C-alpha cells in the first residue's frame, strides 16, 4: 500500500472532512451554548460563548414536572423494541424477495413501497380507534406497532438493495460445500451483511426516536417519548429555550455514544474465507 503524502491527505481527506463537519456540528454547538446561556443573554448582542454559564436548565429538565428522564426511558424502550421487531421481519422478507422468485412477489414489493407514500396525518383517527380497540392505547406497544408498520417497508427495500449488491458467489460456494440455505444464511451472509444490518437498524431506531405525530396521540404523560416532552416546553407564552436546547443535547449525546460502539460493526470489506473474485 502506497503511503499517501501528508499534503495529498490534507486535500483529499482532512480539508473536505473538516468543512463538512463544521456544517454538521455548528448547529449542535449553537444548541449547546444556548442551553447554558442565561435567558437575559439570549436577546440582544450575540455572544459566541456565554458570559455566564448556567446549568439550571439541565437541572429543571429532571426535577420539574417535565420528567425528561421518564421520556428518555420511554423513547429508548420503544425505539429498541421497534428496531428488533422491524429488523427481524424485514430481514426475513427482503431475503425472500432477493433470493427467491415467486408469484405475487412484485406486487408485494410494490405494495410495501407505496405504503409509505401516504401522508400519515390522515391515518390518525382510524389508527387511534384501532389502538383503542386493541387495548394498546398509552402503552409503548402501540407505538412499537405503529412504528414497525412504517419502518418495515423502507427496511425491506433497503436490505433488498444491499442483498442485491452482495455477490451470489458467496452463497453458491457455501451451498456447493454442503450447507443448506439456512446455514448459508447464518454463517456466510449474516456476518457480511452486518454493516447493512447496522445501517438499517440505525434507520429504524432513528425513525422511531424522532417521531412526533403518532407519539402525541398514543401516549399520555407517563408513556410519552422525547419529542412529545420537548413540544410541551413550548407554551402559548413562548419557548423555554434553556430547557428545550438542554433536552436536545441530552437526547443527542447518548445515541451518538451508542452508535460509536455500534459503528465498529461497520467493518471493512469481505473478511477472510470469502470467495476470491
Amino acid at each position, binding site marked *: 500500500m502506497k503511503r499517501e503524502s501528508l499534503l495529498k491527505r490534507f486535500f483529499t481527506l482532512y480539508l473536505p472532512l473538516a468543512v463538512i463537519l463544521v456544517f454538521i456540528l455548528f448547529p449542535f454547538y*449553537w444548541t449547546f451554548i444556548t442551553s447554558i446561556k442565561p435567558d437575559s443573554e439570549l436577546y440582544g448582542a450575540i455572544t459566541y460563548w456565554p458570559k455566564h454559564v448556567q446549568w439550571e436548565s439541565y437541572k429543571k429538565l429532571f426535577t420539574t414536572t417535565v420528567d425528561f428522564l421518564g421520556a428518555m426511558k420511554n423513547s429508548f424502550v420503544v425505539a429498541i423494541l421497534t428496531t428488533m421487531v422491524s429488523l427481524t421481519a424485514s430481514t426475513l422478507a427482503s431475503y425472500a424477495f432477493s433470493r427467491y422468485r415467486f408469484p405475487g412477489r412484485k406486487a408485494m414489493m410494490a405494495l410495501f413501497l407505496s405504503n409509505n407514500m401516504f401522508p400519515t396525518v390522515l391515518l390518525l383517527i382510524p389508527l387511534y380507534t384501532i389502538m383503542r380497540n386493541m387495548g394498546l392505547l398509552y402503552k409503548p406497544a402501540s407505538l412499537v406497532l405503529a412504528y414497525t408498520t412504517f419502518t418495515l417497508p423502507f427496511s425491506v427495500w433497503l436490505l433488498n438493495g444491499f442483498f442485491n449488491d452482495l455477490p451470489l458467489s458467496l452463497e453458491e460456494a457455501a451451498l456447493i460445500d454442503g450447507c443448506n440455505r439456512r446455514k448459508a444464511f447464518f454463517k456466510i451472509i449474516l456476518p457480511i451483511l452486518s454493516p447493512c444490518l447496522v445501517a438499517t437498524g440505525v434507520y429504524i431506531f432513528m425513525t422511531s426516536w424522532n417521531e412526533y405525530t403518532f407519539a402525541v396521540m398514543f401516549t399520555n404523560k407517563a408513556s410519552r417519548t422525547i419529542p412529545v416532552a420537548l413540544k410541551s416546553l413550548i407554551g402559548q407564552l413562548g419557548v423555554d429555550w434553556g430547557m428545550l436546547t438542554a433536552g436536545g443535547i441530552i437526547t443527542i449525546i447518548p445515541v451518538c455514544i451508542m452508535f460509536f460502539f455500534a459503528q465498529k460493526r461497520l467493518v471493512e470489506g469481505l473478511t477472510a474465507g470469502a470467495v476470491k473474485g
Partner: protein
Amino acid sequence: MVKKKSIYPYLLVAPALIIILCVVFVPVINAIGMSFQSYDLRRPKEIAFCGLENYITVFKDKLFWKALWKTILWVVFGVGFQFVFGFVLALLLKKKFKGRGAVRAVSLIPWVTPGVLIGLMWRWMYDGNYGVINDLLGKIHLLDKNIPFLSQTNTAFPAVIITIIWQGIPFFALMILAGLQGIPEELYEAADVDGATGFQKLFKITIPSIKNTLFVTTLLRVIWVANSVDVIFNMTEGGPAYSSQTLSVYVFNKAQALDLGYSSAMAILLTLVLCLVAIPYLIFTFREEDS
C-alpha cells in the same frame, strides 16, 4: 435463484405482510373513500358522496399547483445535495484515520436530533434580529444589513431547504458507507496496478458496485422528504405567504382544519405522483433481476 415452488418465501414474508395489512392498509382504503366524499368534520351533517368533486376542486386550486412545484424543488435540491454531501462524507469516513469512530458517531447528529428541535434551532439561527447566521455573515462582510430569512418570500424556502440538506446528510453517509463495505478491496488494487486515477476508480468501480444501494436510498429518501412535514412546519408553517408550503404541508394544514375529504384527495394525488417517480425504478430493478 430458487425458481421451484416452495412456501418458504411466503413464510419469510408473512410477518411483515401481516403487520402492514392489518395496521395501515385498512385506514388507507378508508382515506381513499373519504376523498370521494364531502368529508368535512366541521360540518359532519353534510357528509355525502360527491364523486370527483374534490379532485376537480383540487385541480382548479392554485395553491395545489404552487405546492406541487414547491415539492419538486424541495425534493430535487433537498435530496440532491443531501446525496452529494452524504456520498462525499461516506467516502471520507471509509478511509482510515485516527478518531474515525468518534467522527462517524458525531456525523450522526443531524439525524439524531428530533424534528421539533431542528426546526426551532434553525429558526433561531436564521432569526432576523437575534440570529447567529446574520451575525456571522455580517462579520465576514457578506451582508451589511440583517436579513429576516424566514420572513421574506424569496429567502424562506431556500433557508428551509438548507436545513433539510443538513438533516439528511447522515442518512446517505451511513447507507452508502455500509454499501461500500461490500466492495472487494482487490478490485481497487487491480485498478491501481493498471494505473487508474481516483476519478476513474470512483466512476468505474465504486459507483457501479453500489448501484442498487444508491438507487434504493435515493428513492426512499425522495419518498420520505416529499412527505416530511416536521421541519417545514416548525420553521415556517408553510409561510410566509405559502412560499414554503410543499404539498405534504398543505395536506397537513387542510387535515388539521378537518377538511378530510379535500386533504385525502390531495394525499391520493401526492401518492400517485410519488408512484410515478417510483415506477421507472421498479421497472429497472425488476428488469435487472430478470436478466
